[in-house]
């Protein structure tokens, strides 16, 4: 082993304070949702449940229940109990929003109850490549941009916009309440949160997908983290924040700012009201800088 060496000159210019040891939330964070009950009724037979800083939805129909992200084994048990408070109907489907473990662990209890586990086909690569004992493999998948899941006269519309946050995320639209269940692509009212590292996001595809989502018909969104309802414009706000961030980082790079100073130099006054702006803007900017350098 070689003796310890000091970093080369170039490194001295690099951001060293990128990572804060005190960040509390790790997953795609949002303003933590402390208020309110864990289950909220959003419409006739339509509910949202939250636990462990994650959120999902469930839909009760005459023929059974459509559940979504189980979150974790612990949360899933609680989730099932909440469903049982409002219906005795069997859970027929468990729909995964995407493959990340902070949303899809704990499906076994639903599988044992006879539910069909469903995800986009593109998630299978990840489930097979990096298995997690708490993650139940999907029984059914769909390919392509849309699949309508129908049960008991209700429809859950599933939309896939390709690569954005991973490449298998589905946006779920509930026509009865004209709302969408939108996980991780938008955490309302904040900058890209949690660790601020913009985990597993492809910035340009993210913006493209948000534009496509903005064009959808819906009155409000139910986030995979955060409050049960946020207005349509929360999607627009996130998209505009990302666009402004990309422009700012690029122009800072083009103006010849010392590389290590770029992330810290970014200011987006139009967005300074966003939750975590002060704490995480520089980290968001650093991720965007990596995009311009690596193409990732």
């Amino acid at each position, binding site marked *: *082993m*070689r*003796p*310890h*060496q*000091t*970093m*080369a*000159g*170039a*490194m*001295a*210019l*690099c*951001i*060293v304070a*990128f*990572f804060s*040891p*005190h*960040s*509390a*939330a*790790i*997953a*795609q964070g949002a303003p933590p949702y402390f208020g309110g009950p864990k289950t909220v009724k959003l419409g006739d037979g339509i509910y949202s449940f939250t636990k462990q800083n994650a959120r999902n939805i469930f839909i009760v129909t005459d023929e059974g229940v459509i559940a979504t992200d189980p979150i974790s084994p612990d949360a899933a048990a609680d989730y099932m109990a909440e469903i049982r408070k409002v219906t005795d109907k069997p859970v027929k489907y468990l729909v995964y929003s995407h*493959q*990340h*473990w*902070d949303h899809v662990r704990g499906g076994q209890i639903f599988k044992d109850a006879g539910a069909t586990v469903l995800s986009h086909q593109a998630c299978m690569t*990840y489930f097979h*490549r*990096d298995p*997690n004992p708490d*993650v139940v493999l999907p029984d059914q998948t769909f390919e392509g941009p849309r699949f309508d899941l129908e049960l008991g006269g209700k429809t859950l519309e599933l939309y896939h916009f390709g*690569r954005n946050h*991973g490449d298998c995320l589905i946006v779920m639209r509930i026509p009865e309440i004209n709302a969408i269940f939108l996980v991780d692509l938008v955490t309302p009212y904040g900058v890209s949160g949690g*660790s601020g*590292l913009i*985990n*597993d996001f*492809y910035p*340009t*595809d993210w913006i493209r997908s948000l534009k496509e989502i903005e064009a959808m018909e819906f009155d409000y969104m139910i986030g995979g983290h955060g409050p049960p309802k946020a207005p349509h414009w929360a999607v627009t706000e996130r998209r505009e924040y990302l666009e402004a961030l990309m422009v700012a980082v690029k122009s800072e*790079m083009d103006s*010849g700012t*010392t*590389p*290590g100073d770029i992330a810290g130099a970014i200011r987006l006054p139009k967005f300074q009201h966003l939750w975590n702006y002060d704490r995480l803007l520089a980290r968001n900017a*650093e991720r965007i*800088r*990596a995009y311009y*350098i*690596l*193409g*990732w």
Partner: protein
Amino acid sequence: MKTPSLILSLSLAVAGCSTTQEPASSGPATPFGSLGAMTTNIGDGLYTVSAGGARTVFLVGDEGVLVGDPISTPAAEQILGEIRKVTNKPIRYVVYSHSHWDHIRGGQVFKEEGAEIWSQENCLAHIYRNPNPEVAYPDRSYTQKQVLDVGNATVELLYHGPNHSDCSTHMYFPNHKIVHIVDTVQPYAVSGAGGRMNDSYPKLFVDSLQMLEDEVPFERMIPGHGGPIAPRDAVINRRKYQQALLDAVKAEIDKGTPFGKIPDAVSLPKFKDLRGYDQYLAANAQRILIYYTIGW
């Protein structure tokens, strides 16, 4: 101020800061990395060149020349100049180590010389989805293994699964028992730059290096930054560091250490002599924590 050399200098510094690997401390140290190309003759037709903040290789055979990463347009011109100092044979092949722009810009320079560009097939999605005017599209791709011959001199392109990226080629030179590994292993260093392990696959990383060690009888490695050459042990050491990091973070999670405190709680005294240990260990641990949280 906008002289080409300034632009080049800045781009070098940026590349060095933002890849997962920092420029190593060898090579001409300037605040902006190594300026100008520096070639090392390994022997038997194999050369390695440091240019544009990164390192590449070229192999001269009886019938032509094979080049690794073009790095950037100005670097590729310098590399071509270095090749022309030792041979007038045609450039037959360029092989992209992976898809990141800090290594694969400038391929056009060699394409105009008649070279055929190769990459592992998973790179195509990244390169096509995120086009960069300076990145030439690969002409050919392979899945697991491809042998290229330039006349009594061969290289094996080997894919051992996701590690630093999901399309990294290990270029093995059987005559020399040398493997060229870009970014996945920086000899005797932790995962550097911001320590964020951009675009890496934390757990599969270990499997990939293990596969390389098991299947390829290499004795030395040439890295993609710094260098020029390190013993086989550098790969083994990097794999062990990654595994130790995974184990240490997992142990803290299992112990119930609050997530915000885990990165600082991790300590790996066995690896304290690695370059960047003090500066980046916590950031590396943070990235591993995200892996355990979301599976990315």
